[in-house]
């Protein structure tokens, strides 16, 4: 269950560093999945690795400052809205939900 807030029923999420690099927040709420799906085909099949629409780049800014993740907690950037809307995300069954820098810290000896 999404934790109940006294003043509002909308999801409260940890936007990490935040900021706007693609489009405004309302547009992104509605259309981010189309951008990601288009970019995934461009990257996997053609090798185009433009950063603007890449999942990795989204995570870079939107992962929580606290735990470097977009999926670790109930109010993480991806989880909060998806939980609220009851839409399952498949991305992170294969993709990492953490910042590359944090992953490197954990995985270099």
């Amino acid at each position: 269950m999404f934790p109940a807030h006294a003043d509002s029923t909308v999801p409260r999420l940890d936007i990490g560093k935040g900021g706007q690099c693609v489009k405004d927040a309302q547009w992104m709420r509605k259309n981010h999945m189309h951008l990601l799906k288009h970019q995934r085909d461009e990257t996997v099949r053609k090798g185009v690795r433009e950063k603007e629409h890449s999942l990795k780049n989204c995570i870079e800014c939107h992962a929580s400052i606290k735990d470097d993740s977009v999926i670790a907690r109930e109010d993480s950037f991806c989880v909060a809205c998806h939980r609220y809307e009851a839409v399952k995300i498949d991305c992170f069954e294969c993709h990492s939900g953490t910042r590359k820098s944090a992953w490197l810290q954990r995985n270099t000896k």
Partner: protein
Amino acid sequence: MSDIDLRRRNFLKTSLGAAAVAIAPGMLLFDAAHGKSEAASSKVRWGMLIDTNQCKSGCDDCVNACNRENGLSGGTGPTDSQWIRKIEIRDVGSGRELSLPMMCQHCEHPPCVDVCPTKASFRRADGIVLVDRHLCIGCRYCMMACPYKARSFVHEPLHDQNPDVPRGKGTVEACTLCVHRVDQGLQPACAEACPNKAILFGDLNDTDSEISIKIRSVASVQVRADLGLNTGIRYQGL
């Protein structure tokens, strides 16, 4: 008079130099911030030449480097992913022994691509054979079609993958020729890790590349050349 002129000339010289230095890192920063926008080109064909004379028996540095880079467990059981294996072969007649790494051979005519029912298995323009895990349904036809036993199926849920190497349960995977590194202009992890430089990585289409020059000058073979797959991985001394 001449003194003033000299100083003016020096001033112009140094300011031009400073401008050049300022532009160069700026351009580098632009590249880093926006990633690589051009697609893989069919003018390039990535490949490897593996010198089996330099490959030491018992050494598995390439395998370890691959496991580390791509987040594989390193297990060799039937349900563990192996993208590259070390193989020891022995000629029964002469007793000659060889050690070599075996992985996806990145064929020009890959059987895994032919059999894939969802077009998840595909060959990129620059010759790298990959699985698009977004489309893979895990039927494993490609694993049966591959003459090199190069592909693995992910049986268990995975956690904490390398952000550059997404992998997941229910899909087939294999050596990607470290495509995420190649696209950054780096070498595959195994080639970089080999202590004897037995793995030479490069562009087979570029006649001036180190690999092309070597393939022209020494005898090399493709494994199972009889199948006519035109592999991108070549072996020397096999």
